């Protein structure tokens, strides 16, 4: 590298691979901007008063080889015991064809949430399969495209009960004592903040006073019992309550599904459908309900619609339910979900089909029944005679201790249900040999009689008559045609080819930070030492994870300036909720529970107001000025007006408009003076790492999107991780966990089902920081700022840039004003977004934070060549708009209105447009070499929302459109 770009990074540093622009490019880009070094640019762009004046105190970056060796050392400290702990997590066999072609394939894991439907038809179809699978197995009409975990899914169901209920009484939610303890804890935390009283009890003894909005049942119960809930459900509904059943998805292949029992909703984990345990995650939770409640369903729903030519097309449906539109009136704050894991679970059902899924469920059940028989033969008493895969075995305390000790000796974990009760859950991976070992464990040296093999061959079902499933499952063709590995592999490839992911082109989505997810960072995700641990194993078996968490927390604390980090929140929105709950607990601990006003700038991400409402706060909107900055006078006025009730301010920094607000310290000061706490949304942390620290600026809490700044891939809409950092005075209020106590004295409660969120993806962020080191991370931030400013400068003549800070510079993203073209050419922002697909690009963020505009965030990983290609495409599109403006192109029948053009369209015998096919198909020379063809024409969102279909359509609709 040359001297004048002020970098010390060399070619053997990983940063050299992570960063897009080559050293010479950096010089020429700086030249375009008129700065002679990266530091000079950053000095000009970033206000001096927020700068960190020293290097981050982090280890120097290591090589790819070294990072893998270091991770191997950590991994070896984790002990992979065979866990039969259950509680919503069961071992599974990940079909290798899915592991290799989905989990380990950048074509799937680097995609974004499918907002641009026409270049996302592959994962939209995969998600529709997933929804169909969930709807089929639960018996309901409609399922969403995943939630974060079973605990939060149950809490979402409760929020939905509250939204639907018309009762004026103080709300009460009844929870089955047989629920998994982590589910009950998450529900209680969420309920308390919303003023809902939770009563835990035996379902048969529930009393339905006024105000009971809903009931949560576990099916089968956490200790394995299978009960017929029909009467409970009937009684609850007669009293006006809605009933949610948290159901094990595999058991539903054999059991009467929740909908047929009469329930209103079902939730649960889909992990055991081919997704590794991962020490707690990531996994997709499902949510299903009746069609009548469809407008209240939380999270994303994939729906069927038609494209501009009447062909079937998929896209995200009824988005008006969601936080990005409904803000503080949304019933849920969920944004990032668990798409990659939902895709895997859905594909597991596609691969195994109805017979395969039934066979697996039957085997698991038969083995469990055989084990029950063997245990009875040993003189044990089973607490429940009706079960699916889980047994509760009664014995005196001394014997229970001996059984657990015998199990440990064989590297087996059983569940400590109670001092005198041992629990165990079998799973798909259980073999007859393992069954024999389990019998030996319980035999405690006694000679065993019958062989498990014989027992398994002849044992009777333990599913009660009347609860056996009679309705068919997975009847749709997609579950019945890809059962050979060759067919499956090709199906996955076919879907992958319909989608634009980072392995095809840049995805310049503002506020989403679609940077490189390096292969080396991904490697450890597949290691059994990381992904084979049950979340509730004894802590000493997860010593490697403890080291990894400790180091990662320490590094993130140094990067942000905070005293402590909680890894529990599973996504950014979840981090917001957790952070606000910490603030709430802090005010309460000081006797200031009346502090419940949350100030939020108008330009905030929609999750902010939705999270504030979930945390029991009242949202007060603060105005932003023409530059997109917080209007200081209005902030002072609002802070003053709510002085006695101010709980918090939520602010994004750099702002959602991509600008370093120079007043940020003053903003924090005003809030503190009025007794409030500052919550900083870390969505834009990619512009800060190494050059400024939120805690130093004045923030009290911050969430980090590890799936943005710290390289966890977006997975097509999840997994994410949203850990929070907090200042010293808030440390006593961090999240805790009922099963794995975290030693927090005045905790805000339980945020996620698993104590450390989604651990198996944390090695990705760990590896990124270890590889980059302090210098590399800081360099990445500077290059992110350089890339954004370079794109902004090059586009400046073509498009109006909406906001800028000092010296006309921006932070790491910029907003292009495309609104004037509506008037001048009848072109709106979606015409431009879809036309970009013809050029082989994914559109920037559409209509956020300013409706009708595009927000571009290139990240540091994009090369100058790719940035130039994108800028050239945008400039060419500007030219096409000018052709319409100046009458050279038809005002209606033009390339923009008709975009995107499919291969089928441009190859059709008939071509009636006034522009050539070539302009439609290959608008730039690069597109001749490679582009992802849009699989469908413009998806008609209104048609789909007016005619909602959220499960796989009958197969004939996929037949060639011929006559259409």
């Amino acid at each position, binding site marked *: 590298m040359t001297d004048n770009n002020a970098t010390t990074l060399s070619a053997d540093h990983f940063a050299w691979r992570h960063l897009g622009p080559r050293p010479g490019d950096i010089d020429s880009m700086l030249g375009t901007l008129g700065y002679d070094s990266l530091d000079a640019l950053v000095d000009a762009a970033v206000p001096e008063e927020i700068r960190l004046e020293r290097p981050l105190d982090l280890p120097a970056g290591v090589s790819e080889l070294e990072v893998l060796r270091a991770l191997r050392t950590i991994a070896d400290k984790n002990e992979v015991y065979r866990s039969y702990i259950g509680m919503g997590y069961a071992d599974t066999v990940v079909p290798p064809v899915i592991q290799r072609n989905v989990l380990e394939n950048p074509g799937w894991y680097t995609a974004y949430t499918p907002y641009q439907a026409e270049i996302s038809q592959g994962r939209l179809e995969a998600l529709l399969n997933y929804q169909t699978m969930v709807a089929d197995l639960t018996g309901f009409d409609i399922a969403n495209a995943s939630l974060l975990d079973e605990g939060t899914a149950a809490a979402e169901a409760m929020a939905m009960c509250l939204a639907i209920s018309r009762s004026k009484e103080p709300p009460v939610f009844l929870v089955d004592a047989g629920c998994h303890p982590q589910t009950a804890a998450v529900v209680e935390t969420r309920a308390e903040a919303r003023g809902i009283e939770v009563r835990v009890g035996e379902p048969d003894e529930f009393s339905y006073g006024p105000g009971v909005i809903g009931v949560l049942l576990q099916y089968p119960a956490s200790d394995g019992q299978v009960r017929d809930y029909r009467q409970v459900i009937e009684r609850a509904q007669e009293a006006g309550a809605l009933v949610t059943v948290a159901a094990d998805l595999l058991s539903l292949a054999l059991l009467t599904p929740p909908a047929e029992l009469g329930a209103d909703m079902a939730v649960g984990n889909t992990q055991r459908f081919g997704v590794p345990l991962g020490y707690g995650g990531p996994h997709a939770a499902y949510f299903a309900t009746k069609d009548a409640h469809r407008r209240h369903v939380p999270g994303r729903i994939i729906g069927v619609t038609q494209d501009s030519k009447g062909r079937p097309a998929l896209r995200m449906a009824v*988005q008006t339910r969601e936080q990005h539109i409904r803000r503080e009136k949304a019933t849920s704050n969920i944004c990032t979900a668990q798409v990659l894991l939902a895709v895997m679970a859905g594909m597991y059902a596609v691969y195994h089909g109805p017979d395969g899924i039934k066979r697996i469920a039957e085997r698991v059940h038969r083995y469990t029944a055989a084990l029950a028989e063997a245990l009875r033969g040993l003189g044990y008493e089973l607490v429940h005679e009706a079960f699916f895969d889980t047994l509760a075995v009664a014995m005196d305390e001394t014997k229970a201790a001996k059984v657990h000790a015998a199990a440990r000796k064989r590297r087996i974990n059983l569940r400590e249900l109670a001092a005198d009760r041992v629990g165990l859950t079998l799973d798909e991976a259980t073999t007859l040999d393992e069954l024999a070992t389990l019998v030996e464990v319980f035999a405690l040296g006694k000679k065993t009689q019958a062989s498990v093999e014989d027992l398994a061959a002849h044992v009777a079902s333990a599913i009660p008559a009347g609860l056996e499933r009679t309705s068919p499952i997975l009847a749709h063709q997609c579950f019945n045609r890809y059962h050979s590995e060759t067919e499956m592999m090709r199906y996955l490839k076919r879907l992958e080819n319909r989608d634009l992911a980072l392995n095809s082109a840049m995805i310049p989505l503002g506020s989403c930070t679609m940077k490189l997810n390096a292969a080396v960072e991904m490697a450890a995700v597949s290691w059994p030492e990381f992904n084979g641990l049950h979340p509730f194993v004894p802590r000493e078996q997860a010593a490697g994870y403890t080291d990894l968490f400790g180091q990662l927390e320490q590094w993130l604390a140094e990067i942000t300036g905070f005293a402590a980090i909680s890894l529990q929140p599973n996504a950014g929105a979840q981090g917001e909720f957790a952070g606000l709950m910490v603030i709430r607990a802090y005010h309460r601990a000081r006797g200031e529970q009346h502090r419940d006003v949350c100030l939020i700038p108008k330009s905030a991400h929609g999750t902010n107001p939705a999270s504030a409402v979930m945390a029991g706060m009242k949202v007060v909107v603060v105005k932003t000025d023409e530059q997109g900055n917080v209007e200081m006078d209005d902030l002072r006025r609002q802070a003053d007006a709510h002085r006695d009730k101010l709980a918090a301010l939520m602010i994004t920094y750099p702002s959602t408009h991509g600008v370093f607000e120079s007043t940020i310290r003053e903003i924090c000061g005003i809030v503190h003076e009025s007794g409030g706490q500052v919550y900083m949304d870390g969505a834009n942390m990619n512009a800060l790492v190494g050059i400024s620290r939120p805690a130093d600026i004045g923030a009290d809490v911050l969430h980090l999107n590890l799936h943005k700044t710290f390289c966890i891939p977006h997975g097509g809409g999840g997994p994410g991780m949203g850990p929070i950092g907090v200042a010293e005075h808030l440390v006593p209020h961090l999240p805790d966990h009922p099963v794995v106590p975290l030693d927090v004295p005045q905790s805000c409660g339980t945020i996620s089902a698993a104590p450390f969120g989604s651990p198996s993806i944390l090695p990705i962020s760990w590896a990124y920081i270890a590889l980059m080191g302090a210098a590399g991370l800081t360099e990445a931030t500077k290059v992110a700022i350089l890339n954004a400013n370079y794109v902004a400068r090059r586009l400046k003549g073509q498009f109006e840039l909406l906001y800028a800070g000092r010296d006309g510079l921006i932070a790491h993203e910029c907003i292009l004003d495309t609104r004037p073209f509506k008037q001048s050419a009848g072109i709106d922002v979606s015409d431009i977004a879809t036309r970009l697909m013809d050029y082989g690009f994914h559109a920037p963020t559409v209509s956020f934070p300013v409706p009708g505009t595009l927000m571009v965030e290139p990240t540091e990983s994009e090369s100058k060549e790719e940035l130039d290609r994108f800028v050239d495409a945008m400039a060419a599109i500007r030219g096409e708009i000018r052709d319409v403006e100046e009458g050279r192109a038809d005002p209606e029948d033009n390339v923009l209105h008709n975009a995107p053009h499919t291969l089928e369209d441009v190859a059709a015998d008939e071509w009636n447009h006034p522009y050539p096919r070539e302009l439609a198909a290959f608008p730039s020379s690069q597109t001749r070499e490679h582009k992802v063809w849009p699989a469908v024409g413009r998806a008609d969102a209104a048609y789909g929302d007016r005619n909602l279909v959220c499960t796989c359509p009958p197969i004939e609709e996929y037949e060639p459109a011929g006559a259409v």
Partner: protein
Amino acid sequence: MSDIPENLHYTEEHEYVKPVDDATVTVGITDYAQGELGDVVYVDLPEVGSKFAPMDVFGTIEAVKAVSELFSPVAGEVVEINQAIEGDPGIVNRDPYGEGWMIKLQLEGANALSSLMSPADYAQHIGE
């Protein structure tokens, strides 16, 4: 330019009031409002018999990427709702002042309409 019929009364929130007789009116959203929302996909209407004070929320309207509350321009009791909207929400876009009406209100109190905007005022309000 959006259509602003002369014989109607308007609110700042873009509802219109159309007198049916001395005691009843129909309420809907203006042509300008439907244009701003885009394709309407769902309208949540109140039950017949509901009573509203001026500027109470009587329902919500959803387009593909927007949702908006509907405000009762005047005090009154709902005597009829437009059932046709449920099956075909697009009529709000196609014919906001005719087939796309939303609720029929029995007025409460005299001079209820005097506080509403005139067509000219409304035109100015939306900058046309």
